[in-house]
Structure formats: structure tokens, C-alpha cells
């Protein structure tokens, strides 16, 4: 009898437990499955993580804007500032703030709010502040001129795109509502850092309605948005850390967008009915092979060129990366202002000829250091196989990333396969890292990749600095293209590709475009068909 009772109870519990629980997602709600692990909080002055930047993109505005898909980072567009001009000496920037723009609180965006936001970021002095501080180190350099005019003085002249990249940065560049910040300020926390970490004080197309940590972020539409109300009423960014779980949820229709799928899942979903793959046309992340000038055979320009010609780039991009990368052999990424498109393909005859010219027809032994994880080990194996064809015998050594970085900084590598990314949308970052080196010693001012590969050509650092400061965009573009061409010809890098951001959506989702820096993806224009 007892056993029967027990069985009956078990049956009831089982039925309750297995009853379907999920309903259909409403047409005005977009549910995105995303890994929340990198999410820390939404304090604009602190945000450095891509996922946090993506949330800020929906909630805040900056003076200038990067909008659109493919061409988002090729020119600067007006944001809260409808126009701007720079003084003759290239030091003072005057911004004219758009009138009639409202914060979510209903307060008006004006010059005071802009000055308050940037000065607040300098006061808070969090990790990303260097992006602003390198040009504008003190609060007095940011001034209110009148109700709708702000002037910002830089310590040295810089190009418009570089200025915009720093002040349009999705984080420290955000304009906050001073009244709301003051309302939530406390004695211990006069700048309301704690409050703003979990709420918003912005003027963007959405507001943060709810944040349940490691569960969901709910954004609701801001109908008075100055560029027009968003199409969606609600966006739910649901925590789904595991790519397989995201894929299954997308296929079942429990989420509309899966943000963190693996390349092989994307390949599979491309042919799946009811699913659409949306991808960026580039990104500012890249894989590259670094060659150390301090290592004898690699110090010969012909050897470095031979290595460039020997690699099968298509096998790496299409095969190993499974289409999740776009081939690019220049130090400036595809899709960024002044990118030089000079792609070349494997040419073994040319490579062998160059090896012979350098006196290394018989080849040599070399060590290639890289990380222990994928795709590094596969790419290293491909490089080993390709270089064998021109008699370069590669020994692959793998180590954890922290160790690879240590070797790179100590400049004890020969060949080193690594990944890099640019912090903001201007070529000056790439040029500084890969072409700026004045001295080889420890007293060097910039100790980035060029220095680490002992690549110190005379005069190149001057070009890099000149390009950063150049006001005329056309001349600036010419300078960056010249730098790229020179580094490509004689430099220590074999650039392989830029990795892509690939997401999959239900086919009911329309209007989603992903720019080269995916956190700048705007959801304002996204809608859903029934």
C-alpha cells in the first residue's frame, strides 16, 4: 500500500515537473542569449569589457557616433554634438550640442552635462581613463562655453578620427545626466559610482529596466529618443554561457539571437531553415606571426618576405577558422579608416627564390612559440607545414598565454604566433604598436610589438606620430597607408586575418547589423516580423 502511495506521488511530481513551461516570445520583445560571465557592471567610466560596452551602446549617447554596419568606423558621425570645429593650432575642439535632446529622466542634454560627464570620468580615474587622459589629462581642459557649446583642449594636436575614437568610446565617452547622478550621490560616494554601476543615467534609445546578475538584463524602449523611438519595446539579454545551450535554445525558438556560437555551429546553422547568420565584415582583432629581427636568419628582409609568400592564407582563414575570419595582411584592420588592401596569396616559387637570394636555399631551423589553445595550435601546424616547403624546419613550442607574453616581452622568441586587438577605432593604435620604436633599449618610450621584435627603422616613429596629429583626413590616410606598406614590405609581422563576429538569429529578426567592433551594434533599428 505504502509503495503504491509512493508511486502515485512520484507520478504526480513527474507530471508537474515535465509539463512544458515556455511560452512564445512576443513580437515586440527580442531575447538574446549571451554569456554573462564577462559582465561586471554598467558604470560608464569603468566599462572596458565588450559585453558591458554593448549594453552602454543601447543606453547612452556620446558627442560623436559610429553608426552603420560595414562602414561604421570609416568616418565620424554626429552624435549629441551636431557639429564641431577644431582651432588652427589643432589643440582646441569646439562641440555644438544638439538642442532638445532629453535624458531618460526628462532633463535636457546640454553643455553642463557633457562637461560634468568627462570631468567625472577623470575624477573617478578607473582603468580605461588612459584613453582620455593621453590627450586630455586635466579637468580644466574641458570647459563649458555656453549652454550648448563645449570646448576641449588636447595637450597635442590629434586627428579627428583619433579624437572621436577616444571621446566616442563606449564607456568613458558616455554623457550622463548630472541631476540623476547628484540625486543618487551619497557622502561616501559623491559621484554615485555604486548606483550608476547597476542603473543608467543616459539618453540612449533604451533604458536599463532590470539587471538580475548572471540571469538577465532587461532593456525597455525610450520613446522620446532624439533619433526616434526604437522598434522593439523590450530587449531581454538572457545569460546562457554555453554555446550548445544557446544553439538549442535558438533552434527551439526560446531565444531570438544566439551571440556566442562556435564557428562550426555557424557553418551548420547557415543551411538551417528558419535561422539566419548575421556577421560583421571585419573586426579589430587579429592573428599574426611575429618574427624577431634579433634572430639571425629572420633579420634578413628576403627571409621575412619568403615566409610571407610561403603561407597558405586561405587554408588558415577558410579551413582552420571555418570562415570566421577575413583575410587581411595589413596592420590596419579591414573596415578601419585608412586600411590598405594589399592582399597576396601563397607563392612558393617566389618564396624559394627569396630564400636563395638570402643565402638560405638549404633552409634553417627555427622555433615557433604559441598558445596551447585553439586555433593557435592548428594555425601553428599549418605554418610548420607551409614553411617546410621552403626548407624552414619549424619546431612548435606551446605555452599558456601569460608565458607567451613573458617571452614576447623578454624578446627571446624567434617566431611567435599571437592574437591582438585594438582598443579603439583609429589606426593610430595599430601604428603605434607595430611601427613605433625609436630605440632598442629598455628606455624605449613604446615597448609594443615593433620593439618586442627589435624592429626599429629610423624615421618610422616620426611618421606614426605625425599621422596621429595630422588634421587633414586625406593626408592622414596617405601617411597611414605609407606606414602599412612599409611594415608589410620590411616589417616583422605576417598578418593573417581579422576575426569576425558571427551570431545567429531566428529569421523573424530583421535589421540587425554588426559593425567591426561588435559592442557598437545598435539595436534601435532591429525589429521582428510575426
Amino acid at each position: 500500500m505504502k509503495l503504491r502511495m509512493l508511486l502515485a506521488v512520484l507520478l504526480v511530481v513527474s507530471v508537474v515537473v515535465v509539463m512544458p513551461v515556455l511560452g512564445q516570445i512576443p513580437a515586440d520583445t527580442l531575447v538574446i542569449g549571451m554569456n554573462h560571465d564577462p559582465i561586471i557592471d554598467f558604470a560608464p567610466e569603468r566599462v572596458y569589457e565588450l559585453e558591458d560596452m554593448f549594453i552602454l551602446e543601447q543606453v547612452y549617447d556620446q558627442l560623436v557616433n559610429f553608426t552603420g554596419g560595414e562602414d561604421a568606423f570609416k568616418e565620424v558621425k554626429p552624435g549629441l554634438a551636431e557639429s564641431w570645429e577644431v582651432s588652427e593650432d589643432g589643440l582646441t575642439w569646439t562641440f555644438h550640442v544638439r538642442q532638445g535632446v532629453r535624458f531618460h529622466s526628462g532633463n535636457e542634454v546640454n553643455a553642463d552635462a557633457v562637461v560634468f560627464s568627462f570631468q567625472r570620468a577623470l575624477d573617478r580615474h578607473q582603468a580605461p581613463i588612459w584613453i582620455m587622459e593621453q590627450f586630455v589629462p586635466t579637468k580644466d581642459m574641458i570647459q563649458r562655453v555656453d549652454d550648448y557649446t563645449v570646448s576641449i583642449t588636447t595637450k597635442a594636436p590629434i586627428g579627428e578620427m583619433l579624437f572621436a575614437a577616444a571621446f566616442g568610446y563606449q564607456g568613458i565617452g558616455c554623457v550622463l545626466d548630472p541631476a540623476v547622478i547628484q540625486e543618487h550621490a551619497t557622502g561616501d560616494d559623491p559621484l554615485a559610482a555604486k548606483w550608476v554601476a547597476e542603473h543608467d543615467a543616459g539618453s540612449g534609445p533604451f533604458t536599463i529596466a532590470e539587471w538580475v546578475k548572471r540571469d538577465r538584463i532587461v532593456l525597455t524602449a525610450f520613446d522620446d529618443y532624439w533619433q526616434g523611438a526604437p522598434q522593439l519595446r523590450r530587449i531581454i539579454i538572457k545569460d546562457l554561457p554555453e554555446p550548445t545551450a544557446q544553439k538549442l535554445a535558438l533552434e527551439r525558438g526560446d531565444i531570438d539571437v544566439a551571440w556566442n556560437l562556435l564557428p562550426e555551429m555557424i557553418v551548420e546553422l547557415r543551411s538551417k531553415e528558419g535561422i539566419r547568420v548575421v556577421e560583421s565584415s571585419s573586426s579589430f582583432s587579429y592573428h599574426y606571426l611575429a618574427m624577431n629581427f634579433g634572430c639571425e636568419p629572420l633579420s634578413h628582409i628576403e627571409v621575412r618576405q619568403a615566409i610571407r609568400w610561403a603561407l597558405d592564407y586561405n587554408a588558415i582563414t577558410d579551413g582552420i577558422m571555418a570562415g570566421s575570419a577575413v583575410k587581411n595582411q595589413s596592420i590596419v584592420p579591414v573596415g578601419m579608416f585608412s586600411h590598405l588592401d594589399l592582399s597576396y596569396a601563397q607563392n612558393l616559387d617566389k618564396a624559394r627564390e627569396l630564400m636563395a637570394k638570402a643565402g638560405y636555399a638549404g633552409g634553417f631551423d627555427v622555433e615557433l612559440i604559441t598558445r596551447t589553445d585553439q586555433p593557435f595550435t592548428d594555425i601553428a601546424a599549418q605554418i610548420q607545414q607551409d614553411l617546410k616547403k621552403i626548407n624552414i624546419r619549424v619546431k612548435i613550442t606551446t605555452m599558456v598565454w601569460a608565458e607567451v607574453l613573458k617571452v614576447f616581452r623578454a624578446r627571446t622568441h624567434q617566431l611567435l604566433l599571437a592574437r591582438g586587438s585594438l582598443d579603439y577605432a583609429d589606426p593610430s593604435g595599430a601604428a603605434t604598436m607595430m611601427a613605433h620604436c625609436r630605440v632598442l633599449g629598455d628606455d624605449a618610450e613604446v615597448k609594443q610589438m615593433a620593439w618586442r621584435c627589435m624592429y626599429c627603422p629610423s624615421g618610422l616613429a616620426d611618421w606614426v606620430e605625425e599621422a596621429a596629429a595630422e588634421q587633414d583626413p586625406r593626408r592622414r590616410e596617405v601617411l597611414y597607408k605609407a606606414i602599412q606598406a612599409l611594415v608589410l614590405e620590411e616589417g616583422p609581422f605576417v598578418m593573417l586575418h581579422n576575426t569576425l563576429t558571427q551570431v545567429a538569429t531566428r529569421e523573424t529578426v530583421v535589421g540587425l547589423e554588426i559593425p567591426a567592433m561588435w559592442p557598437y551594434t545598435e539595436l534601435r533599428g532591429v525589429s521582428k516580423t510575426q
Partner: protein
Amino acid sequence: MSMVTYIVRRLLWLLFVVFGVMTLVFFISRVIPADPVAAMLGGHAPADLVEEMRAKWGLDKPVIEQYLAYVWQLLHGDFGVSMASGRHVLQDLVEYFPATLELATVGALISVVGGIVLGVVSAVRRGKLADHVARVAALTGISMPVFWLALLMMLLFYFILGWLPGGGRLPYYMDPPTRITGMILIDSLIARRLDMFTIALKHFVMPALTLSFFGVAAISRVTRASMLDVLGEDYVRTARSKGLVENRVVLRHALKNAMLPVVTIAGIVYGRLLEGGVIVETIFAWPGLGRYATNAFLALDFPAVVGSTMVIALFYSLMNLVVDILYAFLDPRVRYD
């Protein structure tokens, strides 16, 4: 020695163990060849900012000085501030630990009940079909990788059959109950939301079952072995010869005496479920301590690493203490000295 004296002595010893674990983790995290500030700021930040941040987190001081400062903080109940989130570590632990504790507890309950039932059946029906099935199931449970099992369950019960939700503690459209304990089942009961309790329970099924697979296997094997020993004892034969019903012989006389090793393994299983849930937490999107600790390790967030390790160590030690106390109830011959 009285029980109370014993418990007090063990609690003091427990503090010593946790302190030891903290010291070990503190020093290990400081000697690994990686720089948390570099990890936090990326490779392109200027050197003076890196130095400023190092000073801010006290990383520019000698390790021993950092250690003493940390111990001083701890003595004042301060676990420090997470370098990644800027929040107090204690605040983060309070946020994430209840979810893990709740999942591990449900997993441990399933492990204990399932393991004992399987073990007893297996011992009583030794050599018969039920025994073979139970043993194969136990072997599978012990050898199957958790991530694989989790994905398989998700594929079957969520994707193909659609019976169970695919992750999280509640559906996205449902607001969680007012946070009192941080445990969703308890909080939904306190809020008198039976509907929410039922839905939350559904969310527990897959992660808790996945998590308990190993526990069921381990406990059933130990129960079986222990039961077989006991079933061969004279007093069991005596009980049977008195004419007692077999169920009574097995459950009243044999099982209680076979429980000692089972309690030990159950304690270990509980501890393991608590610290080993990271894969299950990731696959089933569970907002628990395992994921928090893993991210802290990856980001080299020292205060968070030390804080979460201490919580796990504390809980593990407490479990051991509970197991030892349970011994006395199960076997009066056990003396505490």
C-alpha cells in the same frame, strides 16, 4: 570528552584549516607568472597607469606585507574588494553562494536517496538482473564526463522532448521572488508562490540530476559493499531465524549498521557537488559560486579567488564535522577523544 567539547575543539581546528587554505591560495596566486593588472588593463595601457593600479591594489608591496594586510582585513570581517568588479567579495559571495548551495543540496539529496536505494537493491538481489543493472549504472555514472551527460540530457529533455527548460533558475519572463535566502525554492515558498516553486523545481531537474549522477554511483557502490558485509553477520541471521519479515531485516537491522561508510561517502559527495558544479553551472546557466570562482581565477582576481576558496574550504570542513557527529548517532561505540 563530552560532545560539546569535541565540537568546540573541531570548530577551532576548522578555523585553522580554513586559515591554512587561505594562506596557501594567497601565496600560490601571488607566485604564478601572470600579472592581474596587465590582465585587467589589457596590453596597451600606459606604464604609469599600470603602476598606479598596482599601487591601488597593494600589489607593489612585498608579498608578505600584502599577506599580513589581508589577514588584518580578514580579522575585521573584510574579504577585500574584487579587482574585477570593484564590489566587496563578501557581497559577491552572498550573491552567488546560495544558488550553488541550493543546487548542491538538491543534488546531494538525490544522490543519497538514489544511491542508497540502488545499493540496497543491488546487495539484496546480489548476482541477479537488478544487481547487474545497478552496477552498470553506477559504473556509467562514475565514468561519464559531466559536460557530456549534461549536454545529452539537455538535447533529450529540452530540445527533443521539450519537457524541461534549457537553463537558468526561472524563465526570463518571470520576476524572481523577493530575495531573502537567495535560494529560489525557499524564497518562492516564503513568498507563497507555489506556481513559481513548481516552475523553479522544473529548472532544478536537469542540473541536479546531472550533478547527482556521480553521487548516486559512488553512494550505491559503497552501500552495496557495506550491505553485503552486514548481511553476512550473525545478528542478521538471528533476525531472520526469529522469523522477521525480510524488509524489516534489511531496512531496520542491516541498513542502519551498514550506514557508517555511506555517511562518510555522502559527506564527500556533498562537498564535491559544491565545489565541482562549475561545468553544470555553465551549461545550465546557473548563477552560482562555481562560475564566479572560475571567472575570478581566469581574471586573476586575487581577492575573489581567495574569498571563494575559503567559502568552499569552510563548507567542506563543516561537512566533515557533521559526518563525524553523525557517526555517534549511528554507532554508539564511536567515542570522541
